């Protein structure tokens, strides 16, 4: 139990040290440095009060600076140097080298897929379960159970889903749920219904949904409402960018629908799901969606409860059906919360590492940026390229960072 004892001592020393530091430094300032007595009592009290906040803040600022702010700058510096050349400045050579590696572009592509699919799916499922559990008696129990995966580690979840995706040779009993399900399809009517028509319907619905969203976003650019909408200078380019992104999504889903009907599905063969290029990314994403849905649900459910009852009552009296109430009354009112949930999950996705590391370790075209970076840093020992990819992650996070700071400052005013 040596480390446990060491841990205990650390707790005592660490906590005691912190409290001792705060107490003694306050006493020191009040009694020794600026005593509140004698001829200069008034001035001393003022001075002590000027110093005190920094006493309270010092450990936190020190730790934040050393463990978060300094590494950002240091990583930036490392990404511009070469470790083998004794840390010589090499400019953008590391980035150039990284851009020539197909694995990096694979990681970028996969990260973009993750960025689109996971926040969207988790938020949608979260919203759905929040709305459904809102008014039923055992809703709280249902919520706890859907929320539960939040407590499970990414590694634990990876083991759980490895069992779901497990494959046994043909002829044996399948022990993975997915393959057991797959083996029950034989290419008949039901297979067509569940494996082609149903996914196609879902994809078409998604495409229609995105198209509608794009229409709403782009409309002010086309009609004359733009001038009235009080648009900032960045609004128009942002709308165009979002519109183009949406159009690309629509194109992707339509292409997938086409593939759904033209592809020949290998009925009766057990599939090793995690080795099917491209699609295996989605099997990995399911794990994160499974974990994050609970988070989205809890927050959105609180937001749904915060909606003023009168707005819903008014809609009911006006004869709105439940779907109209949900999409036209409730969703617009909690749009702010939806954005917050979306960005929070986006942050998780950008840093995703454990799931890919534990399930495929980036093989079979499932590489993501964080795992690519880990590979470079600790397997290839290439700190330059590793740091460069870390900076890429940082750049992807930056818009959210700016947006958060902007909102926090707006709120404090």
């Amino acid at each position, binding site marked *: 139990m040596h480390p446990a004892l060491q841990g205990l001592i*650390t707790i005592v020393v*660490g906590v005691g040290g*912190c409290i001792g530091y705060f107490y003694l430094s306050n006493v020191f300032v009040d009694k020794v440095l600026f005593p509140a007595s004698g001829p200069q009592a008034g001035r001393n009290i003022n001075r002590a009060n000027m110093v*005190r*906040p*920094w006493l*309270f*803040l010092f450990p*936190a600022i020190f730790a*934040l600076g050393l*463990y*978060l702010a*300094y*590494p950002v700058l240091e*990583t930036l510096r*490392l990404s511009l140097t070469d470790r083998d050349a004794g840390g010589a400045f090499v400019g953008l050579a590391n980035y150039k080298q990284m851009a020539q590696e197909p694995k990096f572009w694979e990681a970028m592509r996969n990260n973009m897929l993750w960025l689109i699919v996971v926040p969207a799916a988790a938020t949608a*499922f979260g919203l759905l379960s929040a709305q*459904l559990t809102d008014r*039923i008696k055992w809703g709280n129990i*249902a919520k706890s*159970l*859907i929320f*539960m995966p939040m*407590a*499970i*580690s*990414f*590694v*634990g979840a990876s083991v759980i889903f*490895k*069992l*779901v995706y497990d494959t046994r040779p043909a002829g044996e009993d399948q*022990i993975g*749920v997915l393959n057991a399900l797959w083996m029950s399809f034989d290419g008949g009517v039901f297979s067509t219904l569940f494996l082609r028509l149903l996914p196609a319907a879902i994809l078409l619905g998604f495409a229609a949904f995105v198209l509608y969203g794009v229409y709403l976003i782009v409309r002010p650019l086309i009609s004359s409402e733009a001038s009235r909408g009080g648009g900032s200078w960045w609004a128009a380019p942002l709308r165009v960018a979002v519109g183009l992104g949406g159009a690309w999504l629509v194109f992707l889903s339509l292409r997938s629908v086409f593939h759904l009907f033209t592809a020949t599905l290998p009925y009766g063969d057990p599939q090793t799901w995690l080795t099917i290029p491209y699609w295996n990314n989605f099997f990995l994403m399911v794990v994160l969606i499974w974990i994050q849905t*609970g*988070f989205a649900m*809890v927050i959105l459910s*609180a*937001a749904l409860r915060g909606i003023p009852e009168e707005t819903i009552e008014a809609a009911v009296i006006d004869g709105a059906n439940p779907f109209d109430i949900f999409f036209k009354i409730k969703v617009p009112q909690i749009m702010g919360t939806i954005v917050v*949930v979306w960005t929070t999950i986006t*942050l998780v996705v*950008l840093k995703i*590492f*454990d799931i890919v590391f534990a*399930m495929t370790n980036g093989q079979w075209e499932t590489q993501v940026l*964080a795992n690519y*970076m880990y590979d470079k*840093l*600790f397997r290839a020992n290439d700190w330059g390229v590793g*740091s460069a990819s*870390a900076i890429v*992650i*940082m750049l992807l*996070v930056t818009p959210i*960072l700016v947006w*958060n*700071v902007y*909102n*926090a400052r707006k709120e*404090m005013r």
Partner: protein
Amino acid sequence: MSSIAGTKSGLTWAVHISVLALVLLWLFPTVGLFVSSFRTTDQISSSGWWKAMFPQEQNLVLRTAAPDTQKQDGDLFVVEGNIFADNNESLESEISVWGVSSRAIADYVPGETADMGDDGRLTVQANGDYRLENDVELSGSRGERVFVTAVSPPKFTLDNYETVLFSGTARDNMAKAFFNTLTVTIPATVIPIVIAAFAAYALAWMRFPGRAILIAAVVALLVVPLQLALIPLLRLHLGIGIGKGYLGVWLAHTGFGLPLAVYLLRNYMVGLPRDIIENAKVDGATDFQIFTRIVLPLSFPALASFAIFQFLWTWNDLLVAKVFLIDATGETTVMTNQIVELLGTRGGNWEILATAAFVSIAVPLVVFFAMQRYLVRGLLAGSVK
């Protein structure tokens, strides 16, 4: 009116059913792991865990009792017994077919007699009772092999937990990793709370120049990916002599947890009633006294929610432990890391994997269900503006 009432109850039913479906879908994978951790290797690899609740058909290779138990019955030499009892299998199993050769395991139905020539004649009943008789004395040290296809009732075992927690080899045994994880987690949860509480108080209730910028900086640091910190901090730790070890991982978790801690606690403390704090000031209390006597006790819910976050995060963490803690000897491995290694080396040994994973999941689940209220409150404070 009745038609409206009708559609309404129909809709309610649809809601109940879809919630039930959603909940089952979400629970299904975890339950699978849980059930698998109570099954034997053979059971796991021969059938899906969802069949574990029901009696299932198994192919077993069993042996009759050794020839030295034979009795003489008239001029016959006889070995009798129950094939399941002799082989420590469940007595409630029922044989559907059986055989005496690995090439023909389904030659006989219960009650039939297999003639094995010089080795005698074997009769096996459906419940496993058998009778082996021979004209000459049976020889050899082991009994006859019998291949049975039997339907056995559900059977669960705690052996996997025994292996993982107490008896397993260095690679299977999670006990050390469990304590290592605990050793990482507790200081890494407590220390940031103390540091952050003071800072949050200063940011919430003290006036000084630069406060707004500091708050903005905390919000910004909230989203900085910790991937950026790996190399610089590892170099720093190696440079100043901390190296890879507990101290390093505690410091790292403290640093990475601080922004959220400061942010959550400050948001909570700002909401405390101004009157209490100003009255205390008027009565001559110092900031230190106000903080320890008034603000800290009142902030308990926020402290609890951050503690849960940090606990879950440090317990479940893999990356920080891999980089700052686990050295080449592997003495300080944590559970997440050991599971990943098991996944690599024993990808097929589901009984060990499932049990190990469940051991590592159990503690967070208990904390989660016990303290869910605070967790939800923390989530709401942390993200809903």
